[in-house]
């Protein structure tokens, strides 16, 4: 297995089960081999880890998440989800594996012909692997919406919500089946600092409540900082700071389809690559 950079200085998870593994993955579009969207990407997400994926616009973050879900096909290399090779699986075979992954899409991707409640109920109704009796669905939808504090908006349509609320509904839809792995695509993009903080707090809360593994795409360093250094306190309902390396958070940086950095926050801050440094040396004023 080609693991180029072994993260060090992070709480050791190397014996934990692998939930998502990329092996030298390459993705090209329309046979354009000159500029692949993903180029030789390898990494391994183990149970209990949170991965922060940083990268400029167009560096391939969304493509990476979609490839992980089997929504885009890898043209080279192999992708493993829950130790199953999904690279060449048929759509029907993929449905059962995808049911174990929750995904937040960049633009929320709520179904705009359905109400908020119907959107959140959608995975419960349509994922065959989730066999939930009908009378349990309503409470599940309710509790998922309560988690994102939108229980009062059940009957609204997505077009009647603000961008931040839509993002929260999409999170509720992603977590309603309690998947062990969550993929968040740019959860804070285009939001004001306060709303962005609310969303990131939800992600931390979800991680600490159900002990889920997550891959979070973002271009804001402070999002990663929050995930790495804060923990949800179920008693106070607030985020409390934790000591150094208290959470299993690993940072990854992408540049033009390549993974150029993988390691802990300390390593990231010590990195002298000009591209990587740009992501770290952001104005910290609006940090949590």
């Amino acid at each position, binding site marked *: 297995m080609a693991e180029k950079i072994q993260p060090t200085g992070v709480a050791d998870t190397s014996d934990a089960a692998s939930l998502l593994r990329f092996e030298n993955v390459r993705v090209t579009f329309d046979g354009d081999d000159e500029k692949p969207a993903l180029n030789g990407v390898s990494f391994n997400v183990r149970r209990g880890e949170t991965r922060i994926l940083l990268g400029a616009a167009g560096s391939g973050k969304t493509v990476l998440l979609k490839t992980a879900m089997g*929504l885009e096909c890898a043209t080279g290399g192999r992708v493993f989800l829950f130790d199953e090779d999904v690279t060449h699986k048929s759509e029907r075979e993929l449905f059962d594996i*995808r049911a174990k992954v929750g995904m937040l899409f960049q633009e929320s*991707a709520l179904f705009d012909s359905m109400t908020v409640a119907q959107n959140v109920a959608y995975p419960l109704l349509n994922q065959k692997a989730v066999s939930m009796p009908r009378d349990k669905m309503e409470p599940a939808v309710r509790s998922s919406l309560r988690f994102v504090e939108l229980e009062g908006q059940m009957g609204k349509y997505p077009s009647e919500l603000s961008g931040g609320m839509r993002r929260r509904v999409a999170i509720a839809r992603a977590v309603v089946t309690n998947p062990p792995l969550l993929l968040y695509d740019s959860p804070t993009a285009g939001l004001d600092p306060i709303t962005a903080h609310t969303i990131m707090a939800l992600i931390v809360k979800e991680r600490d409540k159900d002990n889920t593994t997550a891959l979070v795409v973002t271009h804001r360093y402070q999002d990663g900082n929050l995930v790495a250094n804060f923990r949800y306190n179920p008693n106070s309902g607030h985020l409390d700071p934790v000591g150094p390396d208290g959470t299993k958070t690993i940072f990854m940086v992408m540049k033009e389809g390549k993974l150029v950095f993988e390691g802990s926050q300390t390593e990231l801050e010590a990195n002298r690559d000009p591209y990587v440094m740009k992501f770290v040396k952001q104005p910290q004023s609006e940090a949590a």
Partner: protein
Amino acid sequence: MLDALKGPVKSVQDFCVLSGGALRNVFRKPHYADDILLQMETIGVGSVPIVMITGFFSGAVMAMQMGRGLQDYGQTGRTGQFVSIILVRELGPVLTAVMVAGQNSSGIASEIGSMEVTEQIDAMRALGTDPVQKLVTPRMIATAIMLPCLTILDDFIGMIGGGIMAKVLFAVPGRQYWSTVWRALAWSDVGQGLTKPFMYSFAVSLIGCYYGLRTTGGTQGVGRATTQAVVTASVLIFIMDFFIGRIFLWISQLGQ
């Protein structure tokens, strides 16, 4: 030269794959009955007004022109016969299909297209549904049921329009008009008049879905997909009309 053909050939191939998938899903679970009913309502009920209006005026125009021609031979009494044959065999199916394509191929393409560019199609796949099963097959079934019904409506309203014109312009008594209308129709005409819309329905729905699903490039792309869907569906309807007409002619010649 071969490279120039690659694009169109690939498109036709993709379209055939989509059509094959949609047809196969008719016999495969899960079935989304709610979506079929919803689409039947959108396509059927939504198109009734335009179908009635075009039907009425096309029938009226035909009676007007036919009557004038027949006047020279003193045969205005047979206006109904011509109106009914042309409406049922040709004009009704084609006009209805083109009108429904204008309204629904575009509607389908823009709806599915916006779902594509806002990642809703990806979300569907991520959440355990096959977009072809959930979106394409219900639209295909709904159109295949509704288009023949709309064509019957169009034919009938067209005959009424023709009857009114025949009475007003050429003083053909209503009773005579309707009896010539009924007598003119053979079973093969009715068969042809219902086979055509059934076949066209696939052009209307599948072309709309095809362009919708391959939409790229944001809202602008949705606009492009919509236009392409209407144009392609309409052209395809005329081409199919020729070939289906040809086949029926051949069958009728065989019978003789």
